[in-house]
């Protein structure tokens, strides 16, 4: 009996003393750890353990925390890439139910000069005046298009391109379709065709050459081409109106209270009533705020080129708080691929779905009238091909030269906005010479600003019915640039 008790005690002690299974954690930033202040980057995380267990991975970048759950299996390596803002203090921590926490700091170096990524198997040095060059291998390229905002130009050769995995290639294509500057060196025809099929900005940002010296020269001369700048939240802010209706409701509620209080004062000055009316009104005001649905709005601005099958988009989702509460909001799955907080503040937790490799929820503290925004970007397939001919009398013939019908929209040409009728494939419409009007609203003005002076563009309202999980009060536009008539 004594031996049995000793054995049980020994087993108990050994169970207590057994160390928690160790986790082998490596965290590598994209672009060899280089980025620029205020941009986004990516952290490549590799986990390995000798025991099966669930684990929580948290990446802290400034005031943002990206959190995801993973299932670790013995002997199997788990790899995931998380997009993060390029804060100087980025760390990765892995927690397991046993309570052990493994932490690694990730060094992000901020470059003051524009960054040039050089992915050349030969390792030849690349110099571009004013740029800081970072030598890269294929594995240093990110899987999330948002991480491409860290760099300003890229030189890639054929072997590096061929070594990219599916997700890296997808991110690169999205970068190219968003007019990202990429010079190709000695690429095979098939890869060149693939990249060329999605090029934005009429290919000005995608020079291709047979030698490094030629590619560098082409890249240098492409820097003189004016590419459309990404929109900022400030550019679009005028279209987002979540707080003013809330402000009006609070103003009306306060006005009603003051009117009621004056009415009460006319009839009585009893101390209990004078205390009770404001006290009950304060409780009612808090209850009213509690019952109000927090307003949210999504604005999508997308741009493409006529005949190019991809359009790039930027979207802003704004949430206005109605009370002091921690808000947890789902991220629309179709926009989730590149979801990031728009600003370094407020503190935000993002739940990342490791299975879908996309953010799923955002969590943040909010207050009445406090606006928190999420920014989305990416690309979507589009089929709009527009051709314009100008007749001798000045009238313009607009033809749908694509394979799909388009709805009614607006045609921006010569500084004027024309009504663009819905057209079936192959159909044409004639716009009279003097049928245009000066841009009347903010959307048309913005579209005009994004259209080349000597060019034309077609603007359509996006039908957002097919986008799951978007707020009711959402709007979107597609601007397709058309070669000058």
């Amino acid at each position, binding site marked *: 009996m004594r031996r049995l008790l000793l054995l049980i005690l020994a087993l108990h002690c050994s169970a207590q003393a057994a160390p928690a299974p160790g986790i082998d954690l490596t965290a590598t930033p994209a672009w060899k750890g280089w980025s620029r202040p205020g941009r986004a980057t990516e952290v490549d995380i590799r986990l390995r353990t000798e025991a099966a267990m669930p684990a929580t991975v948290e990446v802290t970048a400034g005031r943002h925390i990206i959190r995801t759950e993973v299932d670790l299996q013995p002997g199997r390596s788990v790899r995931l890439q998380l997009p993060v803002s390029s804060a100087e203090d980025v760390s990765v921590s892995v927690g397991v139910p046993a309570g052990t926490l493994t932490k690694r700091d990730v060094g992000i170096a901020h470059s003051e000069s524009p960054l040039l990524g050089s992915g050349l198997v030969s390792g030849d040095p690349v110099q571009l005046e004013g740029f800081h060059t970072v030598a890269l291998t294929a594995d240093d390229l990110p899987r999330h298009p948002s991480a491409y905002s860290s760099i300003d130009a890229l030189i890639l050769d054929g072997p590096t391109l061929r070594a990219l995995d599916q997700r890296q290639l997808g991110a690169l294509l999205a970068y190219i379709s968003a007019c990202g500057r990429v010079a190709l060196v000695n690429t095979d025809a098939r890869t060149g065709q693939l990249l060329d099929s999605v090029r934005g900005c009429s290919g000005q940002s995608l020079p291709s050459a047979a030698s490094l010296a030629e590619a560098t020269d082409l890249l240098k001369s492409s820097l003189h081409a004016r590419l459309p700048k990404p929109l900022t939240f400030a550019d679009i802010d005028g279209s987002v109106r979540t707080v003013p209706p809330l402000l009006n409701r609070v*103003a009306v509620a306060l006005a009603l209270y003051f009117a009621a209080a004056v009415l009460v*004062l006319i009839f009585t000055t009893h101390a209990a009533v*004078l*205390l009770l009316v404001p*006290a009950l009104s304060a409780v009612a005001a*808090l209850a009213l705020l509690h019952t109000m649905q927090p307003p949210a709005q999504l604005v999508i601005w997308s741009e493409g080129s006529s005949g190019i099958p991809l359009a790039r988009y930027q979207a802003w989702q704004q949430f206005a708080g109605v009370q002091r509460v921690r808000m947890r909001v789902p991220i629309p799955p179709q926009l989730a691929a590149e979801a990031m907080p728009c600003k370094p503040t407020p503190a935000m937790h993002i739940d990342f779905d490791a299975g879908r490799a996309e953010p799923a929820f955002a969590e943040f503290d909010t207050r*009445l009238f*406090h606006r928190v925004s999420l920014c989305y970007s990416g690309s979507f397939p589009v089929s709009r091909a527009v051709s314009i001919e100008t007749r001798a009398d000045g009238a313009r013939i607009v033809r749908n030269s694509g394979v799909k019908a388009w709805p009614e929209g607006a045609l921006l040409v010569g500084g004027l906005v024309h009504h663009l009728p819905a057209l079936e494939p192959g159909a044409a419409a004639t716009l009279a010479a003097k049928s245009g009007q000066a841009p009347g609203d903010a959307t048309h003005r913005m579209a005009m600003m994004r259209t080349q002076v000597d060019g034309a563009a077609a603007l359509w309202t996006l039908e957002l019915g097919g986008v799951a999980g978007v707020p009711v009060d959402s709007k979107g536009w597609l601007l397709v640039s058309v070669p000058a008539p």
Partner: protein
Amino acid sequence: MTPAPSRRLAAVTGLALAAAVSLWWLGSTRLAVDDGSDASRIADEALQLAWLVRGMALAAIGIHMGALQGFRSGAGDALGLIAPSWPLVAIAWTASTVSWAPMALAELALLAAGVALPLIGRGLHRALQRRELAGMMAMLLGAVLLAALWLSRSLGYLSLT
């Protein structure tokens, strides 16, 4: 002044102060929202302002009311001055970064002052035995209190955040 009209006047004053602060707060918030700046700072300031204007009004008239009308009537008037701002304070708090404890303490301090100042006024009346003299002394004390309050605020001692 008889209790009912003075109480009505105090309550109307309290309402007017609350309405003025509300107007300033909502107007400034609208400007901040249009400007893209943080509206919670305006709410913080509105809470400070609502507290300060009521505190100053109370300092100015609390002792005087107690000296001239007695403790019960004076305290009733003081509460009539403080209470009308409560709905504004509740809404502005939800928009602010002020935590609930300092805000609740500030309101309790106002209520305590609303009771204490008329009591001091009543004591002054008893000590001096002359209504006019007590009234004058109460006015003087009120002015000193008001100045002290303003000075404390200027020196940052009365910050809610």
